């Protein structure tokens, strides 16, 4: 086979792949600008008069998504902040300091990352129900730590390990003190890592569904739950559903693109390092 033909076939195959992954999302984007009548047209139409009505409806209509977006921002935002405050110091200790039980606790953290969420949700439900804390923000924020904290610790460990030891030693020899060395020398070195960790932790919290649907309620209802409820109630309003989904997913799509060069690291965190420790 001539080389050019082969290249052409390869490119065509790649384009097909691109289509398989991007198409459902692009199709949803397109659908969100259609009227409900155009959605159900057969054969599906690419040429239609675009409308912003769906977006107006899901934003300002009777079933507005705005409170849900606010819920998601609060839950994801606060749990991300709490995660970072706990994870960054812990990751530094795991990566660079000696203390009794370091290896064992590293393994323990890795193991907690593998817990199936269904195993956690039942005890949380029972306890929060007894405490009268279902449908509160703090209940959700606490349970979100169960998956974001192990993840963030291991991701940050990998960034701390990249900091040259000489920098740290130099700072310490200058009698800078442990805390000052950490704050002024080490942390600036892992700024990029902290940004990437923040993005992934926020993204995971934003996308969470099982915990939110069980522990949330009328007051605390993140967008993922709102989307699900939408389809249970309105079986046929697909254009509105698509518009809602686009609004709900816009932040994570943006964050994902922002962190795209780090996504492989974010995806495999723990597994790479974990087995060796």
């Amino acid at each position, binding site marked *: 086979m001539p080389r050019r033909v082969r*290249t052409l076939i390869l*490119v065509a195959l*790649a*384009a097909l*792949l*691109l289509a398989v*992954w*991007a198409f*459902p999302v692009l*199709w*949803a984007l397109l659908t969100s600008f259609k009227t409900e009548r155009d*959605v159900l047209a*057969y054969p*599906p139409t690419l040429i239609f008069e675009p409308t912003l009505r769906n977006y107006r409806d899901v934003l300002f209509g009777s079933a507005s998504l705005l409170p849900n977006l606010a819920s998601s921002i609060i839950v994801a935002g606060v749990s991300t902040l709490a995660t970072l405050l*706990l994870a960054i*110091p812990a990751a530094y200790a*795991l990566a660079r300091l*000696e*203390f009794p039980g370091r290896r064992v*606790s590293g393994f323990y953290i890795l193991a*907690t990352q*593998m*817990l*199936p969420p*269904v*195993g*956690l949700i*039942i*005890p949380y*439900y*029972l*306890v929060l129900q007894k405490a009268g804390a279902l449908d509160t923000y703090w209940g959700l924020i606490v*349970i979100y*730590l*169960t998956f974001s*904290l192990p993840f963030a610790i291991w991701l940050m460990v990998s960034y701390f*390990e990249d900091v040259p*030891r000489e920098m740290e030693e130099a700072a310490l020899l200058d009698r800078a003190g*442990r805390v000052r060395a950490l704050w002024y020398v080490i942390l600036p070195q892992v700024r990029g890592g902290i940004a990437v960790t923040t993005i992934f932790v926020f*993204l995971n919290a*934003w*996308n969470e*569904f*099982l915990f939110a649907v069980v522990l949330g309620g009328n007051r605390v209802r993140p967008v*993922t739950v709102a*989307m699900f409820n939408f*389809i249970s109630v309105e079986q046929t309003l697909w254009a509105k*559903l*698509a518009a809602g*989904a686009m609004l*709900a*997913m816009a932040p*994570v*799509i943006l*964050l*994902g*693109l922002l962190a795209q060069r780090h*996504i492989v690291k974010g995806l*495999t965190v723990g*597994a790479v390092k974990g087995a060796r420790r």
Partner: protein
Amino acid sequence: MVRDQHQPGSHNVFPAVINTRSSRKSVSDRAFALLLFLPALVTLIVTTSAPLVYLAWTSAMRIDLSMPWRSGFAGVDNYVKMGADPRFWNSLWLTLVYTASTVVLQVTLGLSLALLVLRIPRGQAALRIAAILPLVLAPVVVGLFWRTLVLSPDVGLVDVVTRALGLGSHNWLGDPQLALISVIAIHTWQWTPFAFLVILASLSSLPPDVFEAARIDRANAWQRFRHITLPLIRPALVIVVIMRTMIALSAFAAIFAATGGGPGTATEILNLYAYRTSFSELNLGYGASLAVVLLAITLAVSLVMFRVRRAR
């Protein structure tokens, strides 16, 4: 991607320097390390391990919120009941089918795609962006997309294609067998990019001179793949298999949104069964025992996998 630049032994270099300075210093260093580490550790123990103990306790109780007067200690009753519960065995079987098929599909597809894309002169960046799209979407939204725009009869994308190809219209999520295939397809669609990106990163980091040498030795394409590429990317493949198995075992939202476990119990993997038992039928005691079984399976699988990984 597999970062080997840190030698295992190098971890101790710096603390050793400190230790020789004075032992008092070393004690305060330890205290400092614990001060940094303990808040996170304690938080994890309180938020993950303590609930699991409570879960185990709950699994030994009869807690039926629809009949609260019947609640009480049940011992191993829930587990005994499980043995004779066909719905449990069905969910266990579906969990096995779902996990095995999605992992195998993701790895084979991801590997093939990565090998293919590596040979494309241009456009890798666009492909990478397309691959990231499904990964960042919430599984519940993916399930909803597929349930409506992709798989619904008549107007869904897949149905439009099969009708155009003369294969006819199908009730992709309503027919028990098709529904299982559909939820497997949904999971595979969303997560194959994971395998693809990780394997692609591993392939791109391989030294080109190894392949040159093999080419000079007249190794054909299959031999080069089988004896050079495959062993070199094995660590990446193992990571993908481990992580995808774990995620498949805790899959929930996409199936819940697409079929809710139905029709009937056709797509009711163990997660769905535990959820439905606990929160639809409000039988939390039995639901907890199902979750304990799931936990045990996850633990066993992860132990086996890490053993395999270590044995390498």
